[in-house]
């Protein structure tokens, strides 16, 4: 299933797409996107996407109306059911193609959008079905966007935009919006990846600050809106611990305890370091030294003395020993 299907590729290459067709399809795609985001597309928004002169765009919208793909009310446009079908087809082509480029051809993920934009036009439904099958009918494109199915339905886009995500709650990144490309480039340059677990630690009108427990990411709110997150599903939800399980920090000097777990929201290198030092479930630990500010503290563990900052010891869950 992982073999690049060169046959399909070769056939796709044969297609010569006319510019008119590309523009039509891009217009439809834009209308679809606006509709799913709950916005209404207007002449100006179309112009922003297609970068055509007023006269050209007028001609295009009139043609779309004539063909029964679009309805217009004043300067606002909406897709007809037939228009939506076509638009979904194009979207499917775009996302499948992106996935193909990224996964099968190893094109860097920052470049797939641009290339798919060119290749998505003029593919038949049969060709798309074959492409989809050759990749095992994937559900998500490389950015985490749902790929419309062959019967024209679009899976619910998972996740909440970062703007609406409650602060300091861990969330897993399920989608990184690839449009506009500039914003996406920023996200990927910052090092955000699908599947990463992050928390919002600060949100002001001018910036949103995230952390994955290791690095911090500062994003403009516009850019942050392109990140979608969903709740972290873990078998060990912190709320499930009995009362006897406390944070290591709460251990008083000289008290002994047994490590129960590391907080699931505690990830990345810092977590691995603690595991390597032997902070594994069942390990016996004793609070040993505290400094002036009570932070850091040193603990006896496995015959060694290890100093930790409060941020870390807060996330080591222990059970007091008598």
């Amino acid at each position, binding site marked *: *299933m*992982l*073999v690049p299907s060169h046959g399909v590729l070769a056939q796709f290459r044969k297609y010569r797409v006319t510019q008119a067709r590309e523009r039509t399809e891009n217009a439809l795609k834009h209308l679809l996107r606006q509709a799913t985001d709950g916005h209404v597309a207007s002449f100006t928004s179309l112009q922003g996407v297609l970068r055509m002169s007023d006269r050209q765009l007028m001609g295009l919208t009139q043609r779309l109306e004539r063909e029964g793909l679009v309805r217009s009310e004043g300067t606002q446009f909406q897709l007809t059911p037939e228009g939506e079908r076509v638009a979904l087809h194009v979207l499917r082509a775009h996302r499948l193609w992106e996935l193909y480029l990224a*996964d099968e051809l*190893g094109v860097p993920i920052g470049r797939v959008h641009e290339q798919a934009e060119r290749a998505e036009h003029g593919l038949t439904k049969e060709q798309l079905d074959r492409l989809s099958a050759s990749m095992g009918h994937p559900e998500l494109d490389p950015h985490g966007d749902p790929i419309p199915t062959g019967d024209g339905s679009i899976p619910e886009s998972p996740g909440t935009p970062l703007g609406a995500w409650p602060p300091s709650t861990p969330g897993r990144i399920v989608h990184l919006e690839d449009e506009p490309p500039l914003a996406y480039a920023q996200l990927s340059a910052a090092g955000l990846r699908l599947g990463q677990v992050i928390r919002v630690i600060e949100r002001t009108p001018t910036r949103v600050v995230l*952390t994955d427990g*290791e*690095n*911090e990411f*500062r994003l403009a709110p516009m850019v942050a809106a392109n990140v979608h997150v969903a709740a972290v599903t*873990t078998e060990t939800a912190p709320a499930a611990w009995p009362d006897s399980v406390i944070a290591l920090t709460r251990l008083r000097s000289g008290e002994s305890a047994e490590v129960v777990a590391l907080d699931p929201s505690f990830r990345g*290198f*810092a977590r691995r*370091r*603690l*595991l*390597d*030092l*032997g902070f*594994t*479930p*069942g*390990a016996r630990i004793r609070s*040993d*030294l*505290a*400094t*002036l*500010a009570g*932070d*850091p503290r*040193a603990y006896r563990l496995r015959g*060694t*003395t*290890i*100093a*930790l*900052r409060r*941020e*870390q010891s807060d996330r080591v869950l222990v059970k007091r020993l008598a």
Partner: protein
Amino acid sequence: MSAPIATTPSDIVREAAALRRSLDAGFREEVVTSLYGEVERLTRRAVQDSGSGPLELDQRIDRIVTSRLLGLPLMLVILAVIFWLTIVGANVPSQMLASAFFWFEDLAAGWFTQLGVPWWITGFVWHGVYRGLAWVISVMLPPMAIFFPLFTILEDLGYLPRVAFNLDYLFKRAGAHGKQALSMAMGFGCNAAGVIATRVIDSPRERLVAILTNNFVPCNGRFPTLIMLATVFVAASFPPAVASLVAAGSVVAIVLVGVLFTLVVSWVLSRTVLRGEASAFTLELPPYRRPAMARILYTSLIDRTLFVLWRAMVTAAPAGAVIWLLANISPGGVSLATRTATFLDPLGWAMGLDGVILLAYIIAIPANEIVVPTMLMVYMTQGRMLEIESMDALRTLLVDQHGWTLLTAVNLMLFSLLHNPCATTIITIYKETLSVRWTTIGALMPLALGFIVTMLTAAMARAWFGF
């Protein structure tokens, strides 16, 4: 999964991603836990622990060394004691070395003259190169030979990690890493080594902060300067009974100023070019160990003292030659040295220093060690200061003939703390960061700070105390 053997790396990565999905989310964690389980089984079989005597002692010491009340004061006291021992111990040998060297200079120059060697060769060799070397050795050797062994004993005892532990909170507030204290401790020896020692810091951001601020701890090349200034100027205005204490105190104060700058600059960096919050900190505190004395003496005397001294001498000899040339090439009747110094005087004045001192700093860019010797040599070539029999004479001459004040001494101490790193350190910063940009910042930022700070103190001293 019927994947054929694929051979491109991206195939492998993709295959790995596919396989990863077939594993439990926390599989690696389970591996760690099971390895530790295995280890516990092994140790149960192989190790017998029959109570622990000395460990108790370790813990009792640690309770004191890291205690809320005593931890920080104890650190200062230890530091002060080390400097005090260094100052008291180095005083006499330094003077003896100086008089011996200068006695020999006169003698040898006399022989040269008797043998009919042209005056300029005698001047170049004996009053230039040799005098440079003589100064470096007599000013630097004794303090280093005392300071390094003492410091290495602390290191071998296991005190350094406790310092990092005690100071971590401050570093955390500054957005930096507690192990920066360890790299700073290495910086006392040599800033280049301090920069390399930052490798122990996990987070690249915090590591860069540590690299850029390492120069704020005075290295061995600058300690003798500080010690000399503290002894000859600051302490001299106090009664002899407390003079050495005052001298030690003022060196500690300068070190604290350096620590303060480290923290402030780290804080600023963490909020500007190196944005970010402090990350995780894990530090193992080893048991206290008895220092291996023979090794300590070897490392601190041979590796550190002689190594540094050699480096200083290699740069001091040419510097001496340059100074001699500057002083003796006199177009229009005024020597080049005097001309340059006069040219630099206004800037020097604004900084509470003078042109000669700045000239010395320029000549000493390759190695900080030779600043004071260079300065003294330039003063001497101006013809007004011929012989220095003792440190007290040095003081009288500088004060009486060159208008030095307490302000000059304090600002010179500040400037020797805050100025560009030596050439070796700059190269090391480049090797560690592989970035011209960070290297430039690392080189120029302390210099800029030095200008600003000395100008401020000079202005304030003049406005309020009428210097």
